């Protein structure tokens, strides 16, 4: 599949354990996967890093490439930028500060929460919405997989996305500033982000904003979970508890509904891949009239459903809600970073947090030239009719429609369909006994083959 050049970079990789079983290919929301040489191959321009392939893979063949943990030792100040989803992975018996102390024992010098600055993020969303009174529906930019999905499948909605970067971008800048205020040199500070999913890694390495990121490295949540869990289980765990500053609203932010509830007017909270797809489809058709903020999370239940979150999403949700209630009872308040009172600093932050443009990257276009695209679309429709329509995937494409598209794009041939390529009477009989009249006559297929 020769593509021009890929504008998306991904950390999802297909490993040697892949059996080419087609499970991932059939569940991919953008049709990015084909089987070639007996293994799953991902088209970089179509993949949106939703992690669905990894979730469904029965062979655990798909993995997320992370940075080498030893990298943290390159810095004097080693900040672990940890999302609240992480503490949701641990049983309530462990106090948050115990979990954080284990992170310190693993080599970090500072722990800072991704959601520490969400209050300011809410301000940024509100300011953006005020600046765009002509827009009726605002889609949250929080889930990077949703942004990419909109780019490739729903390009007419790119202008509905709030053009504000993710909370980890703000939190990383604030903790760096805080440390520099205390006298640290910029180059001595390394910020390591703990990710619950593939999309957020992609957002760090290849941000849609095109702007630079302050993250020095990304660590997979399951990797860190295992390390912390081991320490917690050791009876001689002498890690010193450290304080943290999360409030209940911060803890709930990564959960489905945790973002939308902060905004005035009507809000929608949509979670789960299929729900997101359906809602975007309806928004595009104006079949739903959503006024206000639409929170969208690719993962079921929000970030606790991330592919690198180790524990059951419903259990993790319950644990986070428990901790939120606890923090409420403790009436915890945090001191707002002093520089927020400086207009110059806020101006700088606002610039840093802005996404200049979200480009549409439609994956459907059959050709840049309308006349050629028209010819291909017509041919595709005809080929689709000739194919059996049973979506067996034996051709290495997820469906007959996808094969038809591959054929008109020149990436596959009619003969790759095993129904069409049946030569012996025995295979003819066997196929007919199963599929009956759905198998088209060879004459139709011949006609299509000669078509081009």
């Amino acid at each position, binding site marked *: 599949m020769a593509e021009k050049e890929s504008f998306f970079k991904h950390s999802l990789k297909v490993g040697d354990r892949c059996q080419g079983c087609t499970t991932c290919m059939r569940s991919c929301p953008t049709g990015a996967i084909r089987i070639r040489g007996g293994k799953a191959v991902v088209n970089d321009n179509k993949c949106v890093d939703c992690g669905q392939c990894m979730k469904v893979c029965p062979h655990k063949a798909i993995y997320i490439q992370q940075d080498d943990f030893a990298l943290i030792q390159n810095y004097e100040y080693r900040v672990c930028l940890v999302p609240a989803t992480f503490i949701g992975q641990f049983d309530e018996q462990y106090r948050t500060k115990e979990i954080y102390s284990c992170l310190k024992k693993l080599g970090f010098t500072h722990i800072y929460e991704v959601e520490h600055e969400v209050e300011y993020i809410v301000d940024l969303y509100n300011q953006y919405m005020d600046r765009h009174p002509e827009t009726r529906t605002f889609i949250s930019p929080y889930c990077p997989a949703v942004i990419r999905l909109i780019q490739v499948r729903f*390009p*007419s909605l790119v202008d509905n996305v709030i053009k504000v970067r993710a909370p980890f971008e703000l939190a990383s800048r604030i903790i760096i500033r805080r440390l520099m205020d205390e006298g640290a040199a910029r180059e001595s500070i390394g910020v390591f982000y703990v990710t619950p999913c593939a999309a957020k890694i992609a957002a760090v390495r290849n941000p849609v904003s095109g702007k630079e990121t302050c993250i020095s490295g990304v660590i997979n949540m399951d990797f860190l979970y295992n390390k912390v869990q081991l320490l917690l289980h050791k009876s001689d765990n002498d890690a010193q508890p450290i304080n943290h500053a999360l409030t209940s609203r911060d803890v709930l932010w990564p959960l489905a509904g945790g973002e939308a509830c902060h905004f005035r007017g009507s809000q929608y909270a949509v979670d789960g891949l299929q729900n997101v797809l359906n809602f975007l*489809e*309806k928004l*595009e*058709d*104006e*079949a739903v009239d959503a006024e206000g903020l639409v929170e969208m999370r690719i993962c079921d239940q929000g970030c606790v459903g991330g592919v690198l979150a180790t524990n059951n999403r419903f259990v993790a949700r319950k644990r986070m809600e428990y901790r939120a209630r606890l923090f409420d009872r403790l009436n915890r308040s945090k001191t707002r970073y002093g520089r927020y009172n400086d207009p110059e600093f806020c101006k700088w932050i606002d610039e840093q947090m802005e996404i200049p443009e979200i480009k*549409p990257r*439609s994956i*459907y*276009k*059959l*050709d*840049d030239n*309308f*006349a050629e*695209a*028209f010819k*291909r*679309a*017509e041919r*595709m*429709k005809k080929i689709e009719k000739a194919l059996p329509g049973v979506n067996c995937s034996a051709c290495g494409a997820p469906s007959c429609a996808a094969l038809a598209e591959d054929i008109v794009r020149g990436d596959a041939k009619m003969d790759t369909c095993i129904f069409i390529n049946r030569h012996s009477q025995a295979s003819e009989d066997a196929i007919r006994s199963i599929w009956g009249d759905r198998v088209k006559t060879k004459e139709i297929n011949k006609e299509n083959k000669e078509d081009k």
Partner: protein
Amino acid sequence: MHYTFEIERGNFADAGQASSSVKRTLKQLGVAPPNIKRTVVALFEAEINAIAHAYGGTIDVDIDDGKIVMVVADQGPGIPNLDLAMQEGWSTASPQVREMGYGAGMGLPNIKKNTDELKIETEVGVGTTVTMTVYLA
């Protein structure tokens, strides 16, 4: 390219299949998103009209290299006063239809707003044929 779809009376739940299918094709052709949106919104409105008011019908869509022509033909009560029906907010929709969130009287005006050409042929007691054209380039 030609497409045909059936409309079933009162079946709001299945509305939008025609517009989804047309949308997909227009995306394949690389039509600019605002023109796709206009087309899809108009088609969806016309389909809802036929579902709400008529006794069933058909949608015929023709795409050539410059334009898309969508014909929504129903067997229905017809529109007694077309001028009134074209006014925003005017509706004869039943209370049941309004309860489902439709019938705000924005259907035909919205179609007019989103299409380049609109022709409505209607005969009371026989049916209505709405022909919508959108120039794609």
